[in-house]
């Protein structure tokens, strides 16, 4: 599905734009989430085969000829892992944000650049 592919890339770019322009740490994390989501959509969409069903081989699928009737299960499997990992990273990022805010009472990324050169 070319549209979902386009959507995925679009989200990716939008997310990056957010990460690059937003000053608020939480918004940056959100940007990252959007990038992640975009990636996931891209992954899922490449597994799509037009006109085929989900790779769950219950009674609706002819078992003898199953491989001809279902979409690619691998991207689905991969995306699941990717999602979980994305979630994990996001959670950790948010914890960092919380911690940073607790320590410095600021959510602006500009306040965290004393390390340089």
């Amino acid at each position, binding site marked *: *599905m*070319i549209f979902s*592919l*386009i959507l995925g*890339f679009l989200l*990716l*770019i939008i997310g*990056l*734009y957010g990460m*690059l*322009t937003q000053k608020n740490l939480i918004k940056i994390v959100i940007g990252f989430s959007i990038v992640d989501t975009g990636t996931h959509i891209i992954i899922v969409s*490449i597994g*799509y*085969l*037009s006109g085929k069903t*989900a*790779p*769950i*081989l*219950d*009674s609706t699928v002819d*078992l003898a000829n*199953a*491989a*001809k009737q*279902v*979409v*690619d*299960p*691998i991207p*689905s*499997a991969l995306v*699941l*892992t990717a999602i*979980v*990992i994305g*979630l*994990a*990273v996001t*959670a*950790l990022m*948010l*914890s*960092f944000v*919380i*911690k940073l805010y*607790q320590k410095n009472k600021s959510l602006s990324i500009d306040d965290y650049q004393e390390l340089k050169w």
Partner: protein
Amino acid sequence: MIKRIFILLALVGLVLMFIPFLRDFDFHKELSKLSSQYVEGSINDLNTQNVVTSVIVTYRGLDTLGEVTVLFLTTAGVGFLLRKKKASLKTRRSSELLQTASQFLFVLIILTGIFIFTHGHLTPGGGFQGGVLITTAFLLLILADVNLKFNYSILHFVESFSGVFYVMIGLFGFLILGMNSFLDPTILPLGNYGKLLSAGAIPVIYSLIGLKVGSELTTIIDKMGGE
């Protein structure tokens, strides 16, 4: 301003880089050889109705173990980051209605969650999805009462042991079936295709994953919720 231009340039560059994918991408009409093998294998070797599940739990079981580990790590990481005692928030007690409803829903959601992860090899869903559902149940409780205290020992116990059992099941395969059989689900009988008790150890693994994911996510939400 200059930074803006650079940002724009960077994004335009990225778009230029991705454009070939959108322009020249031609979708497969057939499953890849590997996928076909998975589909066949899922039926013949693993007796698993849900091919995605067989891929996740068996063929790419190491990934999944890693994935669980990632979640576990996140729990540990969040716990490590937010390791200071959290302060009790002063809040108005939530209404009776909310509490009752949430407790009612809690049981329902938990049961649904359990259903989803135990049927991971048959229907869409599985350990992760079930685990997440279970978490939502706890989230509901937390939302209803912010100062809710969980019994951490149980949570930890579930978390630890589901993980350890998962690893142990993996190792059983390895010990029983040989050195290439880490995480081999055929240590348990494969059962009948399409039944709950089929697909060897897959449902067991998926259930353990469900428990682990549920307990871990709950811990994460609990940790972060208090901050």
